[in-house]
């Protein structure tokens, strides 16, 4: 089985649009949306079955029994996350800041601090002609890396397929690093802006640290885009294969707004993404 992960560093470069197109072009039987902070793949991959939903429990959150609290403040002194605040004579734990380390519980001299299970997201699994695993983090939820690991684990349940597509999240931190585990190839989708290039550089170095082979495509190019050449030079210098460019195309937004993939309609961007896909397949076969 070969797994392709789509990342970008910068947000909004077109990861989901390209993931959606690739899923259609490959008739992929197993795919996931690991952008748990802002999952959108389900909006263009219409499912005809209802998702199997499951709560995702992150780390426990701790709670102080305020009626019994004597106000000694030991917990506040020891908490490294500034999660404990004085409220009148007693103390309270802010659930958004609590990371569930249990130090407060262990050191409370009268034992009135206890863990509470905390739902920090929802996992969704669709089983129709393909297996599609996705999730949504709760507002302000933590443990997005753990949630990504769960999303990918659910693809492993019963099917053996030869090709899998994973839509990743922007950035370079925990959810991105979690999504790299098990990936055979990363496609970086960049755009011809100086911000896009700076972000591509940061994610390319991160991917290298985790030893995942990487290729690049450039999305939203215009005849005016001077930065395409900078990206080409960057890729040549760092021995990162370039698999093509996709022009900026106004019809992309209207396909998305109809819940369609760009290869469902006849458009410039759709035609270009087909060529990129063929190249990507050659690279995935080499891994």
């Amino acid at each position, binding site marked *: 089985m070969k797994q392709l992960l789509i990342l970008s*560093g*910068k*947000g*909004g470069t077109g990861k*989901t649009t390209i993931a959606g197109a690739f899923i259609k072009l490959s008739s992929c039987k197993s795919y996931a949306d690991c952008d748990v*902070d*802002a999952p*959108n793949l389900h*909006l263009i991959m219409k499912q005809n079955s209802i998702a199997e939903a499951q709560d995702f429990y992150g*780390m426990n959150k701790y709670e102080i029994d305020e009626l019994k609290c004597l106000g000694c403040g030991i917990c506040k002194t*020891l908490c*490294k*996350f*500034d999660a404990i605040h004085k409220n009148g004579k007693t103390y309270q734990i802010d659930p*958004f800041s609590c*990371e*569930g*380390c*249990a*130090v407060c519980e*262990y*050191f409370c001299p009268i034992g009135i601090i206890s863990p509470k299970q905390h739902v920090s997201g929802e996992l969704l699994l669709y089983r129709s002609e393909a297996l599609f695993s996705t999730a*949504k*983090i709760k*507002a*302000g*939820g*933590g443990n*997005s890396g753990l949630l990504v690991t769960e999303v990918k684990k659910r693809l492993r349940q019963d099917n053996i397929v030869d090709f899998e597509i994973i839509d990743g*999240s*922007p*950035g*370079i*931190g*925990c959810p*991105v*690093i979690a999504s790299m585990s098990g990936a055979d190839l990363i496609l970086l989708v960049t*755009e*011809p*802006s*100086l*911000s*896009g290039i*700076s*972000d591509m550089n*940061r*994610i390319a*170095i*991160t991917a290298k*640290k*985790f030893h995942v082979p990487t290729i690049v495509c450039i999305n939203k190019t*215009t005849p*005016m885009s001077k*930065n395409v050449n900078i990206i080409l030079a960057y890729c040549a210098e760092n021995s990162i294969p370039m698999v093509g460019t996709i022009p900026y195309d*106004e019809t992309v*937004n*209207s396909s*998305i*707004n109809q*819940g369609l993939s760009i290869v469902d309609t006849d458009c410039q961007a759709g035609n270009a993404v087909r060529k990129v896909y063929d190249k990507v397949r050659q690279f995935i076969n080499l891994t």
Partner: protein
Amino acid sequence: MKIAFLSGKGGTGKTLCAVNLASVSLKSVYVDCDIEEPNGHLFFKPLQVKSENVEVFIPNIDKSLCDGCRKCVDFCRFNALGFVQNHVVIFPNICHSCGGCALVCPKHAIADVSKIIGTIEDGIAQEIRVISGFLELGQESGVPIIKKIMNKIMLIQDFVLIDCPPGSSCATVESIQSADFCVLVAEPTIFGAHNLEMVHELVKTLQKLCGVILNKTNGFYDPSEEYCHKHKIPIMGKISYDEMLGEINSEALIAVRENIKYQKMFEEILNNIIEEVRHETTIDS
């Protein structure tokens, strides 16, 4: 006054708005909390930059004192400590730096050693103070960097514009804790509207005042605008899709300094935001 710019979805124009609004303000501080992929500095190119490291503390075990009781291993909720061949092994990338292992060790065999997870750069660009956080590549969580930035800006009385990370999880929460007002930047797609909804849920949960900037509008159906009307979120401004603006922004130039038309547009948006904050805070008090 502190204004946070957030969006849920990436690439909707948070940095475009924060950078340009900072540039039309008289005296402002631009703060980049998108520590995984900070870009504001590319636009401002600040000078006289002072850089400081952000460290966290991870445990280090003195093997001559450790008797292998495993109390630390059993205590660690993050599974950052393991017990292999009668020795405690530390996995620094999983460690949350809670300090619990050192506290529970009966032999006092665990001491803290510092690990650098990123830097904060603080500089000046044409009278605008520019503070940016950078997560070290390969590190998992930049929340301690954001916390340190927040401590730094806590007492600043000037107009502060906070450029937040995308998403609606813990890093975003840290970035908007001290904000008086949140500007949600949205784009006219169902992706944009879906993520606008997620981030709107977040600001409601944290009881923050908010308004929306609709970016890249094109005169067609805008699901984000529809969401704003439905949920009665005030619209601070609309920025229509414009090739020239896109080109200026992709060159990391500040649009309000390139063309008077953009200067006027962002001045108007800034006024709308300030009016909205004044209006809402008078009602509240």
